[in-house]
């Protein structure tokens, strides 16, 4: 049985370590904040200029001057600090954020990611995504394994314009978890399967070569 959106978020949350500074993208990544493991204290950065995102405000207490990068109203914590956009991206570009979790339209075996544009169809812009994938120490992609046409979003090479080249460390989909060896030019390793999802199913639905982690291979 494939993982739900919530389960994918929960699985991603297991990658959080105590003391981490983390930037969460919009969509499933935002849900990760709901599954931070007990005893793990992470600080969430919002690239519009906040370190230490708190929970959503109570009804009637929203402040238009206090939003996250997804433009949602939020609150702060006692440890929070505000800063400018240039300072915020100095923090991101400078490698000070431990982990970012982002959605994607395509991810490739070489660690490339495409998540910002479909030429001729979508004019939105990359926002801070290119900075995050280039600057953050560890990049995790959470997404459906296949698009709505049933085609694999895990590819040998991306077909869409890239957000970043050779930047992805880990891919968490509704079917499985794959590690990408970006330091060595790429190469995917299947390291975990969703419950009742088989290796054969992943093989059938993945348009990229991958190896299987020894533990999983034995189990299969």
């Amino acid at each position, binding site marked *: 049985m494939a993982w739900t959106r919530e389960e994918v978020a929960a699985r991603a949350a297991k990658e959080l370590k105590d003391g981490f500074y983390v930037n969460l993208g919009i969509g499933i990544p935002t849900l990760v904040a709901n599954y931070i493991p007990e005893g793990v204290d992470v600080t969430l950065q919002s690239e*519009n200029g*906040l370190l230490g995102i708190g929970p959503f405000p*109570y009804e009637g207490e*929203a402040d*238009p001057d206090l939003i996250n990068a997804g433009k949602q109203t939020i609150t702060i914590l006692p440890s929070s600090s505000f800063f400018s*956009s*240039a300072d915020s991206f100095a923090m991101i570009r400078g490698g000070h954020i431990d982990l970012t979790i982002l959605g994607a339209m395509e991810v490739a075996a070489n660690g490339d990611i495409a998540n910002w544009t479909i030429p001729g169809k979508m004019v939105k812009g990359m926002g801070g995504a290119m900075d995050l994938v280039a600057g953050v120490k560890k990049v995790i992609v959470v997404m459906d394994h296949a698009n709505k046409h049933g085609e694999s979003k895990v590819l040998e090479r991306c077909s869409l314009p890239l957000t970043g080249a050779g930047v992805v460390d880990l891919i968490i989909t509704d079917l499985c978890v794959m590690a990408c060896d970006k330091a060595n030019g790429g190469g995917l390793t299947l390291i975990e399967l969703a419950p009742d999802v088989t290796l054969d199913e992943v093989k059938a639905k993945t348009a990229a070569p991958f190896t299987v982690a020894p533990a999983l291979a034995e189990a299969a």
Partner: protein
Amino acid sequence: MTNKIYEGPKAALDGLLFDGMTIMSGGFGLSGNPESLIPEIRDSGVKNLTVISNNAGADGFGLWMLLQSRQIKKMIASYVGENKLFEQQYLAGELELELNPQGTLAERIRAGGAGIPAFYTKTGVGTVVAEGKPVEEFEGQLYVRETWLRADVAIVKAWKADTAGNLVYRKTARNFNPNMATAGKVTVAEVEEIVPVGSLDPEAIHTPGIYVDRVIKSTINEKRIEKLTERKREAA
């Protein structure tokens, strides 16, 4: 001291606007926008503007006004989603668009204010953003060269100004405003409150007065919320 306090948006922009000029406008989404100055630019009728701003406003609000009035020739931004009018004009070829990664945009603006004509960043290497730009290796990694951005006029929104032009911003409404304040040949700030010098903590000034030429009290301060997200209070 030359007086920096102006009586309103019209006075504050008087003599600064001309066709074909470049304007920087602070804000992230609809947070921290110079809400009083934008309509004044619209009313001035100035044309063929290049506007540098992270976003392009949203339906009926912010820079959207200058799109509607077709005063913008080119936008330099990082994200223009959630703006149908923009998409229409762009796809119809009526609007030029230069998309920048948000951090590259912020750094280019900072560089403009700091006298740095170019710098190298990892952001965008291997993507369309790096096309046509010098790419060079430093310590085994590739970086792309980006250039500074400066403006004829920067319009920013702050929370408070003192009469020397020192500014403080409020929460995440700070965003691009302090960086843009440094990169305009002339910088005009609108603020919620003008206070006497000595009222602001000198350790906590976000924009020193040297960067601010003209200050007004905001005449429009709507602060529209784009995505209201709240939680219920637990029952006692």
